[in-house]
């Protein structure tokens, strides 16, 4: 008996096998650039690891990866017995295309991106994970759709926005896409919701009250994170160690992800 597997995509099979070892996937996205998706993804992953959950974070931002900067990981990678070993930061396993390319630009079109993401998932030796946090790039293109296809069955989505109306209107479009693709929505994270100053709080990106956001995005605001300028000069691991305000907000977010509403 011959089983003709002509063109059988081995990498696809291997990627699915890796995903099977993951308990739950949390996709962190926005549609809008510059709202702090990588900051939120990194902080959530670190806080989940802080709760003794086996956690990985995967950066699928092919062109503008910033996750390695937040978590202060860099090339080179190394191989292990079951694939490439992810880097580790604060107890979190970290993988990003930038760990292969360094500062090289990665110009790439459509389907190649999907194949690249599949290969990246297939060859990474995550081991068993309770949570994989996926850091998505802006836009609703190949990377997002690839993540939906690979992780959709066991994923939840975390929408990140700032209080700015410009950001919210883009996020609202992604909200509709998430609904049409039937990805469960965990909630909305208002990032840079305020800045803490000596005399109290200021609101550099405006004020978005929770009820109007709920109405616009048909989802609850489950975390409000402060503007955290320290991430420009220190790793997020250090920032969370030093800033009680930011670490408390992230712990509450992680707690919500673990325990549900």
């Amino acid at each position, binding site marked *: 008996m011959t*089983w003709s*597997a002509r063109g059988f995509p081995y990498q696809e099979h291997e990627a699915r096998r890796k995903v099977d070892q993951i308990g739950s996937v949390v996709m962190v996205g926005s549609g809008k650039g510059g709202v702090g998706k990588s900051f939120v993804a990194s902080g959530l992953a670190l806080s989940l690891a802080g709760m003794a959950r086996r956690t990985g974070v995967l950066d699928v931002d092919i062109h503008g990866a910033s996750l390695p900067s937040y978590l202060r990981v860099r090339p080179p990678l190394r191989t292990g017995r079951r694939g490439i070993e992810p880097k580790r930061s604060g107890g979190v396993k970290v993988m990003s295309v930038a760990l292969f390319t360094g500062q090289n630009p990665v110009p790439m079109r459509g389907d190649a991106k999907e194949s*690249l993401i599949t290969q990246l998932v297939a060859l990474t030796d995550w081991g068993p994970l309770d949570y994989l946090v996926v850091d998505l790039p802006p836009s609703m293109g190949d990377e997002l759709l690839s993540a939906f296809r690979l992780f959709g069955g066991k994923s939840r989505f975390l929408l990140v926005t700032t209080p700015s109306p410009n950001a919210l209107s883009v996020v609202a479009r992604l909200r509709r896409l998430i609904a049409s693709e039937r990805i469960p929505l965990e909630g909305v994270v208002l990032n840079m919701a305020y800045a803490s100053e000596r005399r109290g709080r200021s609101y550099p990106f405006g004020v978005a009250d929770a009820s109007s956001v709920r109405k616009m995005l048909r989802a609850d605001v489950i975390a409000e994170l402060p503007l955290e300028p320290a991430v420009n000069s220190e790793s997020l691991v250090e920032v969370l160690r030093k800033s009680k305000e930011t670490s408390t907000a992230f712990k509450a977010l992680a707690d919500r992800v673990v325990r549900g509403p």
Partner: protein
Amino acid sequence: MHEMGIAGGIVEYSLSLVDERRASRVTEIWVEVGELMQVDVEALSEALRTLLSGPKLSGAKTNVKVRSAAFSCRRCGEGWKMDEVKKQLASVPSSLLVEEPDSDEVPLHFLPYLYPAFVHCPKCGSSDVAVADGQDVQLMRVVLE
């Protein structure tokens, strides 16, 4: 080591086919490896032979072939082959080489779809490069008994 990982996935999948199709064993496995992956065919064949043991796999023949890669520039239309790419990959900085037990490898060995980050047109220098095939591992045929 990467070859062993690829072999492991292929063997595991072939084994799952035996159960799925209610066959008794695997007799042949045909694999094609993209040239861009720069996989050592002999090392992959050896890894497969090592892993093909036990009543459902022992004695299975393997056939591993390389799928050629060809490149073209979307900006100027220039075309070239893997020899030129190997020259370019020789200049990948050591800081980006993936550490392996025996020898360090260029990232394309693991993620061939990353070629635009490392390959450019030898004529005009553009990174807007198209590749015809040769970027993947494909399981072409599994014969069961």
